[in-house]
């Protein structure tokens, strides 16, 4: 049951990351994925709290990156943040 909820939550987050063009939504999607990873790990019996720290760390750094990107690029539209060649 918990596995199910973790998976659905993950998929919602993944949908956001893959589909949305607004960088903020992508960011929020990543945070939701992190939440799902939390639940997933607890499901497995890994009752340590250390994973929450990682989740926070990922969120914090990503927020910093996104904020600085907005500062540089002046847009949150992912399709316009494409200076580098593929």
């Amino acid at each position, binding site marked *: *049951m*918990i*596995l*199910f*909820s973790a998976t*659905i*939550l993950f*998929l*919602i*987050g*993944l*949908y*956001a990351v*893959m*589909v*949305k*063009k*607004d960088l*903020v*939504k992508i960011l*929020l*999607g990543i*945070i*939701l994925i992190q*939440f799902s990873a*939390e*639940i997933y790990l*607890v*499901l*497995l*019996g*890994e*009752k*340590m*709290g*250390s*994973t*929450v*720290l*990682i*989740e*926070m*760390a*990922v*969120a*914090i*750094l990503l*927020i*910093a*990156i*996104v*904020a*600085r990107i*907005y*500062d540089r690029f002046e847009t*949150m*539209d992912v*399709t316009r943040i494409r200076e580098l060649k593929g």
Partner: protein
Amino acid sequence: MIVLIVLLMIAALIVIESRSFSISLTALATAGILVAAILWLAQAALPAILQLAAVPIIIFILARALSHRPKSDPPAEKEIIPTVASLVFILLALISNYYLFRSFPVNLPQPSALHEIRIMDWIGAGAVLIAAIIGALALMRKEEGEKKL
């Protein structure tokens, strides 16, 4: 428990689809608290408490860092194709994992040995957090002519 899970899904969807940043943030906070609740009910006390503490921190940082962005959300028309493609992909992934899910052990092993204090893991996780904070500080620093974030 089921109620919590359903609420969590709804909150997650609101986070993604809402046009307003504040509503998304509120929904995210709700989702985070629901996650903590689920963790608590699953007998994971420590993670639940940490999660509960993490939620306001994350929300606060999000609000401060991104408060000055414009309200405009890029237009939604072009999202149809990627949406369909990703949903198809997800569906295929789920189907191909069907057998895996079926055989997932219902009673997961609850090893008592796991309650030893895994110091190295805590140190590692703590270090990850420190790295993120230092990284954020490094990225937010101001140089001549830049705004302070």
